[in-house]
């Protein structure tokens, strides 16, 4: 089932939660609604579910207008952040609730409900807990029961509101993988809300980035990370290093720091955005950049060594005036950077935002060592 969101607006008092949002959710895909709190992602999910009504706009499932349809008739599965299990019912009774609630004519016989519940218990790997009450379960178990409950009636659409938000890191990772498998097996059209960019990029087929009631960008995770459309998406998806300054004769200057930006015609204010892996560290300035930084901290944990640096004689925008650069462990063993050392950042690929364009221009120094070239992204 495809989901079409057409011009949805929603206002809570003076707060504009959603501002004329339109979206197409493809059938059988897992879509993430990603954004900071207050971006309207949960409100949009609740409007799609029918738990909230929009001030204007339409929702359609497979082309059929469901805007006026009550939530109980939309046949969706909804999973809440805090599980919302019925605490006076056992796990089995919770899972059976949707089937028990069907009108008498559609309700399967008792034995069949029991069979379906057992299947679902088997699927969530908790058959031994069938007769426990929710209070006796851990957070991860509760969320699995909530998932089983929401899909007991075989809905075509599964909506999840920050499903892993209340769980600790380890459980979250397991459940994520488990949800991905579940989705691939049953082919729901799923939408899940999250503020965790890693979760969105790892789990989904398509990411919708939202900010202040608007959709900022819709794309596949890899594309989204590689080609953010706006400063907001850039900032929100992962760590970013910013050099903000003035471009004169294809050179971006700020204080004693500068970077050549080959091929940029623009003169005036501009910001250069660099991902931690798009920057190298050198002990001396190079021909195309002079970005002196002093090492603040070195973190060895993980597959990459993370170096935090503070600009020396100039200032970075955001992130507490800190740049972050990722280097390999091999490089680390060679260079042995320590706290207090002076280093020069050498950008390899950068994204230049100017006041004229909302979209960035990509600058690739590695490719353009001899022949400066600029690609414009659309």
């Amino acid at each position, binding site marked *: 089932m495809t989901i079409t969101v057409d011009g949805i607006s929603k206002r809570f008092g003076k707060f504009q939660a959603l501002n004329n949002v339109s979206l197409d959710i493809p059938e059988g895909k897992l879509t993430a609604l990603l954004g900071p709190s207050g971006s309207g992602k949960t409100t949009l999910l609740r409007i799609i*579910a*029918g*738990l909230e009504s929009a001030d204007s706009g339409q929702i359609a499932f497979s082309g059929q207008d469901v805007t006026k349809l009550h*939530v*109980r*008739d939309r*046949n*969706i*599965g*909804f999973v*809440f952040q*805090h599980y*919302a*299990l*019925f*605490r*006076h*019912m056992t796990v089995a009774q919770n899972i059976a*609730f*949707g089937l028990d*609630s*069907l009108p008498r004519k559609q309700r399967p016989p008792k034995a069949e409900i029991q069979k379906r519940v057992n299947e679902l218990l088997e699927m969530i790997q908790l058959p031994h807990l069938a007769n426990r*009450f929710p*209070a*006796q379960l851990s957070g991860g178990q509760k969320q699995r029961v*909530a998932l089983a*409950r*929401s899909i*007991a*009636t075989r809905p075509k659409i599964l909506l999840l509101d920050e499903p892993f938000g209340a769980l600790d890191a380890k459980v979250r990772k397991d459940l994520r993988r488990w949800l991905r498998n579940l989705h691939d097996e049953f082919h729901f059209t799923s939408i899940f809300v999250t503020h965790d960019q890693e979760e969105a990029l790892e789990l989904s087929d398509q990411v919708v980035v939202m900010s202040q009631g608007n959709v900022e960008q819709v794309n596949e995770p890899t594309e989204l990370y590689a080609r953010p459309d706006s400063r907001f998406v850039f900032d929100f998806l992962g760590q970013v290093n910013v050099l903000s300054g003035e471009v004169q004769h294809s050179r971006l200057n700020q204080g004693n720091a500068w970077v050549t930006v080959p091929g940029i015609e623009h003169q005036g204010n501009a910001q250069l955005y660099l991902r931690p892996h798009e920057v190298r560290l050198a002990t001396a300035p190079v021909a195309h950049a002079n970005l002196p930084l002093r090492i603040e901290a070195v973190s060895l944990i993980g597959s990459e060594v993370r170096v935090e640096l503070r600009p020396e004689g100039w200032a970075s925008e955001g992130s507490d005036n800190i740049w972050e650069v990722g280097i390999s462990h091999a490089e680390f063993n060679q260079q042995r950077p320590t706290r207090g050392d002076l280093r020069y950042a050498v950008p390899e690929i950068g994204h230049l935002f100017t006041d004229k364009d909302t979209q960035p221009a990509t600058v690739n120094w590695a490719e353009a060592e001899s022949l400066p070239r600029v690609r414009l992204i659309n």
Partner: protein
Amino acid sequence: MSTANQASAVISQRWPRIGNRSKRVLPGFGLSLGISLLFISLILMLPLTGLVMEVSAMSFDQFWFVITDPRVVASYKVTALAALAASLFNGLFGLLLAWVLVRYEFPGKRLIDAVVDLPFALPTAVAGIVLATLFAENGWYGQWLSKLGIEVAFTPVGIVVAMAFTSLPFVVRTVQPVLEELAPEDEEAAVSLGASDGLVFRRVIFPALWPALLTGVALSFTRSLGEFGAVIFIAGNMPYVSEVTSLMIFVRLQEYDYAAASAIASVVLMVSLVMLFAITLWQARYLKRVEGR
């Protein structure tokens, strides 16, 4: 270390012995518990002991004779039935009132919320006189009801009305906080699973509410058992028909028969205590099961 020592070490860790001040985080346990126990003794236990003392002066035959007097037994029936009717009525109406006060926003909500406590604040005798006036044959309500052939004042129905009036806040005030704490997600989850409104109430809201509702009804019932001031003005007080037990106690007192008065009072006391204990025990078991405590 022997196992006995280990066990006692564990116990002393979990339940610090009185006087073992160094291990306790919150100070003042001894003092606060002491004062509480003193006042419970002075205000609750001592009078009750007096009652038992008074009764114990009687022989069992005397005691039995007093409490099984036909007029007194008739009053038990009237009181219990009227209290039951009143508390059941309060269970329904109090639930409705609590529901309205929690679920909806409307002008004057705060005012109604405050008025709910009025039966507690009003002297019960005042309530009794007002109710008797209203329901009398020529009163505001009574004149219409008498046309329908319904007599309220000076009949057992009047007793029910007075009891319901004075004990309504018990139900509202026990149900209200539970209703306020119900997570809206539970209802949303139920509706998203296709449940009708009636089913949501029956299977999701009511099971969460009913321990509180039962407590409220039980409190309302026990309060009604002992209601005196509001009842005697409207009851009519006809022997065997509309006399309540507390009136029988009052009558014995007026005859300076303190022992007999205490004997009847002890019956009311026992019934109330047993009921409250039973409800508390049952509720603790129910909550333990549901909340895994």
